């Protein structure tokens, strides 16, 4: 396959950026999207041009590092699929593909398709942990957790922190991310003692980092490679409300 790529090129955070047309030739359907870019980069290096800078790490859909908006959709056209797990068989010969970085006020561009997502780390640092010593492995059924809550905590914990929810949101909101990280603890007994403090600190950090608020567009759920549900945002709001009344 031969493709016309339109790739966001930006030398640095303060430099102006623009879409640049780059040809991708001899692409096979079995290549992953990142392998296709690897091959394009090899050609650019041979032509003494600057290769496209992009983030990647595990390339098996679990690390959350790859971050590309493909044809306007974070992680591209396939549902519940990270960019690295997207294969070129989802495209046709002659297609034009627009590749852009995550765009959000809280994610400054480092170079080309790479953005600085440390704002998400700082939300976690604000309270996304349990400080109590949880002790050794407890006896089975010593702490009873209803199955629906255990399932919800697991669903929330699926979040890989990639930031696609932020990139998809018209408000640049990190509510889905924060909701997942708050909920994975809030449903479990170990997370209860610090629940109020945690939700207050994490939402505060979220606002301070410059993320917007949720106004129910549901774009985040549609873009999330792990299918995190917006109902967790309702859980986040509920937890925050409870915490406020406690104060």
């Amino acid at each position: 396959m031969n493709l016309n790529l339109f790739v966001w090129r930006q030398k640095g955070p303060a430099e102006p950026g623009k879409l640049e047309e780059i040809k991708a030739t001899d692409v096979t359907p079995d290549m992953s999207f990142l392998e296709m870019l690897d091959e394009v980069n090899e050609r650019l290096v041979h032509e003494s041009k600057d290769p496209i800078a992009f983030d990647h790490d595990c390339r098996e859909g679990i690390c959350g590092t790859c971050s590309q908006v493909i044809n306007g959709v974070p992680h591209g056209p396939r549902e519940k699929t990270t960019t690295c797990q997207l294969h070129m068989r989802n495209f046709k010969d002659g297609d034009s593909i627009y590749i852009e970085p995550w765009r959000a006020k809280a994610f400054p561009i480092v170079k080309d398709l790479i953005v600085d997502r440390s704002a998400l780390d700082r939300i976690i640092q604000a309270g996304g942990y349990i400080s109590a010593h949880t002790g050794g492995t407890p006896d089975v059924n010593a702490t009873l957790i209803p199955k629906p809550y255990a399932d919800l905590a697991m669903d929330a914990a699926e979040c890989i922190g990639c930031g696609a929810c932020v990139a998809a949101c018209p408000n640049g909101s990190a509510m889905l991310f924060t909701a997942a990280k708050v909920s994975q603890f809030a449903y479990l007994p170990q997370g209860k003692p610090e629940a109020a403090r945690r939700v207050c600190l994490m939402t505060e950090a979220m606002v301070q980092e410059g993320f917007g608020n949720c106004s129910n567009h549901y774009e985040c759920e549609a873009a999330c490679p792990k299918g995190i549900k917006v109902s967790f945002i309702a859980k986040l709001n509920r937890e925050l409300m409870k915490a406020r009344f406690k104060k």
Partner: protein
Amino acid sequence: MDYNLESNVRGLFVLGEANFSDHGANRLGASALMQGLADGYFVIPYTIGNYLAQVKPESITADHGAFAEARENVNAMTKKLLGINGRKTPREFHRELGTIMWEHVGMARSDASLKRALELIPVLRDEFWQNVRVVGTDADLNQELERAGRVADFLDFAELLATDALHRKESCGGHFRVEYQLPGGEARRDDDNYSYVGAWGYQGVGKVPTLYKEPLVFENIHLGIRSYK
């Protein structure tokens, strides 16, 4: 490294896959994962707390001689890599090295294959340092420069891997020397000569590394041969 998982560098703890002390060579996926779980759950939460309780953060500066030396080395290496401007990309060298390792230093390796690898690797390394093309500059994020640095390391490490495999004239774990096998095709260990853990000391590019040995002593449970049949 001691029972607290602390290495002989004070404050440097070694866990999981990098911790080889409990059962010899760790194998990816099996014992290495278990080791990660065991170290992470049962050892380090207790021992690192003990260490942290004894130390206080000090203010450190960039004036230390070791820091200046490291910075100089990195700058020199960066300048060298960017200045070669050859014809082959770091990824092409990586692939070629991968092919050499796949063909000659795989899980089943022989005296002849390892000697062949030790001929090919230095040739490829020489070519790398004369013919690699690293585009871009050292003034901003440069992923090609990062890749070239890694491939440069891989070239040295590949040679060491082959050297070690050639030195160990027995079959053991993930190291299967085809010359050393039992009639049924099982690995034939040589506990009389190789019952030790070894660490190689780097002596410089192309120089023979120095072997440091620490004998494995089994007081209660003695070495035996496991049969999967």
